[in-house]
């Protein structure tokens, strides 16, 4: 029976001096799905990932990855047997060749898939005999992905995996991640590329100023978030639309635009009651949902 969560944090915090990089983070990542971890620069994504992998010790709180505690050094080593990681900085050992990197990494992993490594080596067109220092940035990224995927991990954690890849490389990456997930690997990745997240993710978590501000299934977000554009000849009154589910109201003359995370039927009814002559309901993209969530959190803080 698989564990109900692959990642779980309870009040996880990291303090640098007086500044919180991560603040009381309660994150739950479920298995067999692709979970995106979104946030602005400095939001705490990389710090969280590094705490999960034992590179940074939490200041407060705790967490588990694949059921093993992240703040216990012995358990951290054990969990890293089943977790592959591609960091934001994808540089590897400059003094090794691609082939030596593969041989070196395979030595730590009992379940190393030589067939997968060979196939990816060919697919990514990586020169086996070339020194890592002579690889391009894109090739560094591809080699890091190869080394992670050939481990056949239970959980794959990626920090900005598409950074440095050309459009073809990005396509290959997204295809690989979807295929890996289909084979039973849980994937947790951070990214700034919302379009990529939207294409492959099942779940979206948003972190802002070190706090989790959204954790939702992408399908639910697509289903529930709507933009309602209305024309009100009698003038728009923002106060009329202060109701549950309304995230933002923007008025311009007789036009009003309401972004809502739910309760759309009630908004439409209210618009009709207010004498709207035109009501247009459209889906909201993940980019806007993300920015809206961040803005709401920022205004809430202020």
């Amino acid at each position, binding site marked *: 029976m698989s564990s109900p969560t692959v990642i779980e944090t309870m009040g996880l915090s990291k303090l640098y001096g007086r500044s919180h990089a991560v603040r009381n983070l309660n994150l739950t990542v479920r298995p067999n799905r692709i979970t995106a971890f979104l946030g602005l620069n400095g939001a705490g994504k990389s710090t969280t990932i*590094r705490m999960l992998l034992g590179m940074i010790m939490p200041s407060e709180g705790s967490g588990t990855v694949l059921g093993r505690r992240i703040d216990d050094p012995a358990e951290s080593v054990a969990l890293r047997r089943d977790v592959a990681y591609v960091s934001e900085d994808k540089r590897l050992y400059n*003094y090794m060749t691609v082939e030596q990197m593969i041989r070196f990494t395979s030595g*730590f992993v009992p379940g190393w898939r030589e067939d997968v490594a060979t196939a990816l080596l060919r697919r990514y067109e990586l020169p086996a005999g070339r020194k890592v220092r002579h690889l391009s940035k894109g090739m560094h990224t591809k080699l890091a992905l190869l080394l992670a995927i050939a481990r056949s991990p239970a959980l794959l954690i990626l920090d900005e995996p598409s950074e440095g890849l050309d459009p073809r490389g990005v396509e290959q990456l997204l295809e690989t991640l979807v295929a890996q997930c289909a084979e039973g690997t849980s994937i947790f990745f951070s990214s700034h590329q919302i379009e990529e997240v939207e294409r492959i993710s099942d779940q979206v978590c948003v972190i802002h100023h070190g706090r989790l501000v959204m954790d939702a299934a992408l399908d639910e977000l697509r289903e529930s978030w709507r933009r309602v554009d209305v024309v009100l000849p009698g003038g728009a009154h923002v106060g009329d639309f202060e109701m549950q589910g309304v995230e933002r109201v923007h008025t311009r003359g007789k036009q009003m635009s309401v972004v809502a995370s739910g309760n759309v039927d009630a908004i439409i009814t209210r618009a009709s009651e207010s004498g709207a002559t035109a009501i247009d309901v459209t889906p909201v993209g993940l980019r806007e949902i993300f920015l809206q969530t961040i803005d709401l959190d920022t205004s809430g803080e202020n």
Partner: protein
Amino acid sequence: MLWYKVWLETRARFLISLVGMTALCAYRVYDGNHSASSSIPISYRYFILHSGQQLLSVMWLVAVTLLMMGGLLQEKVTGSASFTLALPVSRARMMKVRICAGLMQSALMIVVPWTAMYAASYFSGPAHSLDQVLFYVVLLAGGGAVFVGTALLISSLVEGTYTAPMISAGIVLACGNAPKSLAFLNPMDFIGGRDYLGPDNLSNGPIPWGHVAAYMSVAALLIVASVKVLERRDF
């Protein structure tokens, strides 16, 4: 596999140092026979023992300082630390392999050049005794261990490609220029062996194991401290 990594990481530095030191030390002794035997024949044994040891010590200290640089902090600078730390290996084990490899390489950089010096003196003129060679080898290994430990600790504390080796080199220089009143504390003076062998005293006495043990203990403390520092560090 960690041994494989350490070997690939350090082999260029190690082999260049080893070959260079061996060649220079052997030439010094061989050349010393021709120049010293005509003018100061009675000093030849002292010359090859003392001068050879002095040359080897200076080169060895530079070599081990460079050799013990590296590790996780250096990898943080070069960008590969995240990859290393994500491997299913504890930091302590990584450090142990690096320390063991460093100590073995440091030992080889004493034994091989001294073997070459002994062979050069044997074939070119009056050879000194193996006991005298062993005496100097022990002095260099004992006193030198402190510098190995110092370089390791600095490489665990200080980030930057050049900062850590500069600080380590600074400590070596400071020891080389320390006041004579502190000679009893200075591993550099111990390595030179002036207190035990001199131009008028070529017969070596018992090896000063007490001093060797003291310096080895200091080195062990420095090494343990560097492991502890790295275990607690955030990356």
